[in-house]
């Protein structure tokens, strides 16, 4: 196990691996997202309550679930980096943050676009949307802290600690927002995202979720590779790998 971690954690190894894996995940993402989106937009039957407007869930639900998934992964990578002092893990965490923030933003944007035809307003203080908003702030805090520290080593460790604190707080934030929401929202506004779905709808949705996941992995591999290149720009193995002398 230790050997594996250290082998995988070595930047040259990761570099080669990411070069090989990126196209696979990239193409898988393209195919899955195309299929899921086409299926969702044209083949799936319209919702009997929400009509055609519900189709935005094929973007909203995958991005909302990815936003949380990416944060957890980012925090775990950061924790691995902090505990075992593996620089690659810090590089992965740093690369994951902007991707996760983009997913979160997408979830918020699609959520508010959905809210307009459903409830006639661009924004509702729905529990899920509010938690997404707080999650976006957590991502911003992480990225701002990284950007504020000049020394890379310190930036890695400080932001890793922040990500872990955030991870512990996410369940508390989610619970408190839901608790607050049940006390305040009139029952007419039902929760988003969980309409009763028949099997056909669900298939396309799952395809899209899988596609988003592959997209995330592909983008993560590319930006983690960029991060590794930036950090190792003076080292011999990198010059060899890039064919620069």
């Amino acid at each position: 196990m230790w050997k594996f971690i250290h082998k995988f954690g070595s930047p040259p190894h990761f570099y080669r691996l990411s070069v090989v894996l990126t196209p696979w995940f990239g193409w898988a993402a393209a195919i899955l997202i195309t299929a899921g989106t086409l299926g969702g937009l044209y083949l799936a039957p319209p919702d009997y309550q929400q009509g055609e407007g519900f189709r935005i869930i094929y973007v909203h639900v995958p991005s909302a679930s990815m936003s949380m998934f990416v944060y957890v992964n980012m925090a775990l990578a950061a924790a691995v980096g902090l505990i075992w002092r593996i620089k690659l893990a810090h590089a992965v965490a740093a690369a994951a943050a902007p991707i996760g923030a983009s997913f979160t933003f997408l979830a918020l944007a699609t959520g508010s676009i959905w809210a307009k035809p459903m409830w006639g307003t661009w924004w509702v203080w729905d529990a899920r949307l509010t938690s997404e908003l707080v999650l976006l702030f957590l991502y911003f805090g992480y990225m701002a802290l990284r950007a504020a520290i000049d020394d890379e080593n310190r930036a890695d460790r400080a932001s890793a600690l922040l990500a872990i604190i955030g991870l512990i707080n996410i369940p508390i934030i989610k619970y408190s927002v839901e608790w607050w929401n049940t006390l305040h929202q009139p029952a007419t506004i039902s929760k988003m995202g969980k309409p009763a779905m028949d099997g056909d709808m669900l298939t396309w949705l799952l395809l899209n979720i899988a596609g988003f996941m592959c997209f995330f992995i592909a983008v993560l591999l590319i930006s983690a590779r960029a991060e590794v290149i930036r950090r190792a720009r003076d080292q011999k193995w990198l010059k060899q790998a890039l064919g620069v002398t």
Partner: protein
Amino acid sequence: MEVPGLGQAFALQVGRDMRLAFRHLGQLANPLMFFIMVTTLFPLALNPSPQLLEAIAPGVVWVAALLASLLASESLFRQDVDDGTMEQLALSPQPLALMLLAKTAAHWLMTGLPLVLISPIVAYGLFLPQEAVPVTMGALALATPILSLIGGMMAALTVGLRRGGGLLSLLILPIAMPVLIFGARATDLAMTGMESVGAIYLLAALLLLAMSLSPFAMAAAMRISLD
């Protein structure tokens, strides 16, 4: 060589910080004045009708308390890091987590506790019904230490940075949001004559969680900042 026990070290640190604070009384009053000022801004900016003020009072009191403790946490460790005493503390044989917890405790006594004590006056000014005042005080007494601990963690993370101010609020506010939600709800429920004990229990649970985890996070953050 016998190193003094944890309790003694804790007491020494609290004692020293209190003594320093009393020699600097002006600084001490800042967060408290801020709390009072912010709550006076609302009647001026809106209109002073008792019905309106009563409706917004829980929100105003809690947001003002949150912002006041945010303001206070800025100065929690900065001076010690600047003058090098934090370095000595990190090199003392006592656990840094304990010493930073002691510093936070002293800080709460000087900034958080006065806020709890003054809150009935502020609440009166905002026409908060009297039956909600004891619950608000109790909830504030539980919430302000949590806010100090959260502030302490984030202050320890950002203490070495020159542009710490705005960053600090970006780090603290999302984490502090549950405290605001539970606290304001406790006041709100008490105002409408409902049972608010649930919110109080939730705050107490958060306080226990913060007290047990945040000292270690503070110490780790401080060691990174001192590096």
